[in-house]
């Protein structure tokens, strides 16, 4: 086995171009488990932890450009205002030790349907910046997940950063599991209110082959909120509307039965999480969070 240790981004892209079979390793919290258990014996590892810029972020204009190698701990401590749903999701990842090493780049690289960053990225709105010696592509996060543990990366490409819309209103993340720490999601749900565009976006984890948005549910709720002038009045959302929204969220799922939960339970849990996160975020909006954006 080879251990490639590029010192900067350019070297990393050159190494990946020369050795498309090289397995990138960032925090190692997925890769090392596979190596320790002999589930994977790659010819080469490509260590990304020497590349300083991957651990940095910039907050400018309407987006935060989050380096692929920023650990969850930093997102929780330093980016919870700009990226509330992602920070909430990050809090639920593994344990302190895992959050100190694990990264959003690694979560995207692994592309597990249960990855906790995904629902938050879908709800907030995000694009994945991927690059190779051939150039750079921006991939909307919805299009990044292509199948169970599959993503849109070409063999010579690496993830450099994720461009995530800065929150312009309340966001929430909810996850079902057996305990608070060290739990792979049975299913997870994120919801973001976007008062600036008067839209609501969702992200569902672990309830379909890939993380998904509940588009029909979003369309229904967007129309209901517009028709009733709710963004202006800040009135409570009628229970019937919330119920219908939650049901449409469950309809967006295509879950399986597995050791962590049955498909029926996952659907049910998604309706509960959809209703609750809508209630929490709308309450925060009523109390003023993001109201200025909607009036502007």
């Amino acid at each position, binding site marked *: *086995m*080879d*251990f490639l*240790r590029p010192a900067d981004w350019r070297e990393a892209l050159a190494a990946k171009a020369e050795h498309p079979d090289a397995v990138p*390793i960032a*925090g*190692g*919290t997925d*890769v*090392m*488990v596979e*190596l*320790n*258990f002999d589930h994977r*014996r*790659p010819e080469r*590892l490509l*260590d990304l*932890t020497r590349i300083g810029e991957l651990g940095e972020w910039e907050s400018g204009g309407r987006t935060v450009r989050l380096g692929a190698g920023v650990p969850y701990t930093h997102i929780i401590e330093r980016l919870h205002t700009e990226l509330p749903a992602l920070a909430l999701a990050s809090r639920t990842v*593994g*344990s*302190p*030790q*895992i959050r*100190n*090493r694990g990264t959003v780049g690694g979560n995207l690289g692994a592309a597990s349907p249960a990855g906790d960053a995904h629902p938050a990225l879908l709800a907030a709105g995000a694009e994945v910046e991927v690059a190779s010696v051939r150039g750079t592509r921006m991939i909307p996060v919805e299009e990044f997940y292509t199948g169970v543990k599959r993503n849109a990366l070409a063999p010579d490409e690496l993830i450099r950063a994720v461009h995530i819309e800065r929150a312009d209103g309340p966001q929430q993340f909810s996850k079902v599991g057996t305990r*608070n*720490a*060290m739990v792979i999601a049975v299913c997870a749900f994120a919801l973001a209110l976007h008062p600036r565009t008067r839209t609501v976006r969702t992200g569902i984890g672990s309830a379909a082959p890939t993380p998904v948005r509940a588009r029909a549910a979003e369309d229904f709720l967007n129309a209901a909120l517009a028709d009733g002038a709710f963004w202006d009045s800040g009135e409570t959302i009628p229970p019937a509307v919330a119920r219908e929204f939650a049901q449409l969220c469950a309809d967006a799922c295509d879950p399986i039965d597995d050791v962590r939960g049955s498909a029926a339970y996952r659907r049910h849990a998604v309706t509960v999480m959809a209703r609750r996160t809508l209630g929490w975020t709308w309450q925060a909006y009523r109390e003023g969070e993001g109201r200025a954006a909607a009036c502007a």
Partner: protein
Amino acid sequence: MRVNMTVNGRPQQADDVWEGESLLYVLRERLGLPGSKNACEQGECGSCTVRLDGVPVCACLVAAGQAEGREVVTVEGLPEYAERRTSGDAGASALAPVQQAFIDAGAVQCGFCTPGLLVAADELLERTPDPSDADIREALSGNLCRCTGYEKILDAVRLAAARTSVSGEAS
């Protein structure tokens, strides 16, 4: 491959390291530091917790080559590390305050989880000298113990915090 790193304040070199090997394996099998324990090799139990450039991590999930040039502190180096933090130099304390507290509170049974818990608890007290119970539970949530039921471990961390703050005020 060869890997160089600083372990418990001293430069160390490991040779013939396999590229897919973990930092935990290097510490235990190549550098003769068996304090960090190997229980799960998948990040679940925390018994291999060490500080990597100051940050608590599972050594079983760090590739050996990723530790090149970095600073590692294991349970073996904890007394010196804690002493350097409080008094500025490393004297001859046999045990870090958190280690003494674990003994005094009866927080050690089979002891397999203890090294990882000590490293995690010591880091908590470095960051948060007077932690709430919620702080302690959160900081230790990545460390499993199959023996104690955790209550004595919580007692030990409270005891270490109380003793450290008293000695801090006295000096």
